[in-house]
């Protein structure tokens, strides 16, 4: 990735993603190996008037050392000041920019999954609270790295793979536009308009049909549709995911029926699930079949009561740039924006207004998105009286 592209990506994260304000403190979270973008973000944030930029480099190989060699009392432990730091970040309304990439598999291959799973720090909860209470303006942005490129394009020499991934990320982040911020603003205006229209229709359900799919997903009466634009309690608008293309809601986990065929391969922590079909009855996934990897998804879907029910329904139109690339990025940030998708597992409670509906939102320890949309799949809104309203045809909005 050349310096100019790195700088444009940093400017997008600072000026549009987190929308850093003058005199704000900016936290930058980066795994080692992402220094070029971290440095560019720091420079862009200072140019935007940041008071101070606090860059924290994490090191997955040190975490590996812990999982491999530390005593049990070290697993899941973090010094108490880390929680205090989160609290003070909330009080001081900082901006947070996190650089996302797939990790070097050498940092995680072969680690004990039980110890890895148990190494959940209390700091994560403290951070989620800052997000839920809207105390911080934040952004997760894709950061091309050679290690990530090798994973996405394993057949290319690493420098060519890195160059290609950089170009793809530039494309999906709209950095190839003369004015990327203006392009994103136009896109968000459109997505906001669509989510408002979908909300106004108050559909009872959404129906997907075509190419092996015939699926009805019931909606909760007071669930809203949204796109990924947030506003802090103090009124700073920001865009927490870059790139993003989706308009999404949280469905009724009791009313999903029919058959759905996945339109893209699904990556579950390294296992590729291909040719996936799932049959739902009364909200539950009762049959999960695939050409490869079905047992991994079956294992996840049986983890708890909510794991076989839906927590998310998202629509992506043909203007979305990620699906057109036909690349698996091994990163949810990007991959879940490739096409219309549903997710097994935990729902999005904040989208539901009515208290009784809130209780219905699906709850689970998993959240696995899989792609079910394509230009060949028609999407219709279903009204309570049985009438249908076209929503997507050939990848184009009809509402």
């Amino acid at each position, binding site marked *: 990735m050349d310096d100019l592209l790195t700088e444009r990506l940093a400017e997008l994260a600072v000026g549009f993603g987190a929308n850093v304000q003058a005199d704000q403190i900016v936290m930058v979270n980066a795994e*080692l190996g992402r*220094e070029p973008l971290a440095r560019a973000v720091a420079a862009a944030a200072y140019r935007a008037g940041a008071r101070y930029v606090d860059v924290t480099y994490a*090191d997955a190989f040190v975490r590996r050392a812990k999982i*491999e060699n530390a*005593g049990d009392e*070290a697993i899941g432990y973090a010094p108490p000041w880390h929680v205090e730091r989160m609290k003070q970040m909330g009080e001081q309304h900082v901006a947070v920019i996190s650089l996302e990439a797939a990790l070097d598999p050498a940092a995680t291959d072969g680690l004990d999954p039980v110890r890895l799973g148990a190494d959940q720090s209390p700091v994560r909860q403290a951070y989620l609270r800052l997000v839920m209470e809207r105390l911080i303006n934040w952004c997760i942005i894709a950061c091309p790295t050679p290690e990530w490129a090798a994973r996405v394009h394993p057949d290319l020499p690493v420098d060519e793979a890195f160059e290609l991934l950089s170009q793809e990320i530039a494309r999906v982040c709209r950095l190839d536009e003369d004015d990327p911020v203006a392009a994103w603003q136009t896109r968000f205006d459109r997505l906001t308009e669509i989510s408002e229209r979908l909300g106004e229709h108050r559909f009872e359900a959404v129906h997907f049909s075509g190419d092996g799919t015939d699926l009805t997903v019931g909606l909760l009466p007071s669930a809203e549709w949204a796109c990924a634009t947030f506003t802090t309690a103090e009124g700073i608008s920001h865009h927490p995911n870059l790139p993003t293309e989706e308009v999404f809601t949280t469905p009724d986990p009791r009313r999903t029926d029919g058959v759905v065929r996945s339109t893209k391969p699904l990556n579950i922590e390294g296992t590729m699930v291909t040719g996936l079909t799932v049959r739902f009855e009364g909200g539950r996934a009762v049959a999960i079949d695939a050409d490869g990897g079905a047992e991994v998804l079956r294992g996840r879907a049986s983890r708890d009561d909510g794991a076989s029910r839906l927590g998310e329904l998202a629509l992506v139109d043909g203007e979305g740039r990620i699906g057109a690339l036909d690349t698996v990025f091994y990163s949810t940030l990007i991959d879940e924006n490739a096409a219309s998708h549903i997710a097994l597992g935990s729902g999005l409670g904040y989208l539901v207004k009515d208290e009784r509906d809130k209780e219905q939102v699906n709850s689970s320890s998993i959240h696995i998105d899989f792609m079910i949309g394509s230009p060949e799949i028609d999407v219709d809104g279903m009204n309570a009286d049985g009438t249908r309203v076209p929503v997507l045809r050939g990848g184009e909005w009809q509402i």
Partner: protein
Amino acid sequence: MADLTVDERRRRLARLLVGFGANVQPGQTVMVGGDIDDRELVRAVANECYLAGARFVELNYFDLYIKRARIEFGGDDSIGYATTWSYEQARAAAAEKWAIISLSGGTDPSILAGLDPDRLGRDNSPVNTEWLKAVSEQLVNWTVGPSPSPVWAAVVHPDMEPDAALELLWSEVERVCRLDEDDPVASWEQRMGDMVATAGRIDDHRFDALHFQGPGTDLEVGLLPSSRFISGGSETADGIPHRPNVPSEEAFTTPDPTRVNGEVRATRPLDVGGTVLTGLRVRFEDGRAVTIDADQGGEVLRARTAIDDGGVRLGEVALVDGESRIGQLGTVFYETLLDENAACHIALGQGFDYCVSGDDVGRINSSQIHIDFMIGDDDVDVTGVTGGGDRVPVLRGGAWQV
């Protein structure tokens, strides 16, 4: 050593810093600090910490390019700013009695080149005071050790191919850290034990001054009545022994800043903030450096020492014998951790209050600077002078006489 893999070399250095340097205890939180170019050694150190039973390794990677961004683009109140949580971290280190391991090596001087020197000078974190407090109250067990990197190797061996330069720097670091011994810790225990005994014998003489004599050097450095020579290790208030510098070859004290007289010639080049001084000669009168001359770079040291009253007076005098492996190598590392252990040296600027006691604490030199320079060699004699005027040989031909 050449048949060891790079990973194995790092593992041995890491084990020495964790087990002997900081002496990490089971259940401790350990802060490991280093430049991002030191990441391979940081990872090896972290791994050894966890093997030693550490509960948490707190990483403190620094990246000079982030500092550069702040100096270049930050507003005036960004310079020298510290977050409230960085104070929490230093307080936690003191309250929870952490171990601290810092890696040190030459960095690429071009990263900060061309920046406003005034803003650079003011960009000091006020949290440093908290960390120094944790150290001076002996709440943390800590060490500073060397981290060979390609950037540092290029500074030390500029005429060599990068791979060969790094290989040579690694073998030099292994030699001076005694990692070429079968049992490096036993070798250090022996060496530091000898040094502590020597320092004790020098203290027993209650010298009033030290006299350095050799080619171009005839310098008398007055000592304070309670000046004590310190060497080797340190101990926390809870009794955890640790070695603040690996390697360490010196016995040092803080002198009387009003009683230094004569001429001294530096026996090695020295690096002052990126400028190399050669052929340095200094003349002292009544404690003050009244003339500073050099074949190259003299003006930089003259400017530095003019910063405050104590800048032209001595804060440290240190004795190093010919057994020092750093001195034996003859390499200039442009890194104080190693270079100051090459030979006897003196330092202009700040003194050490823990080297004296009673009323003498108020008499030690005080300054914003502390610049060490080497004045010892095999042909420089060191003689102790007692209050009664008796002269006692201390070092002759690099060998202890006490």
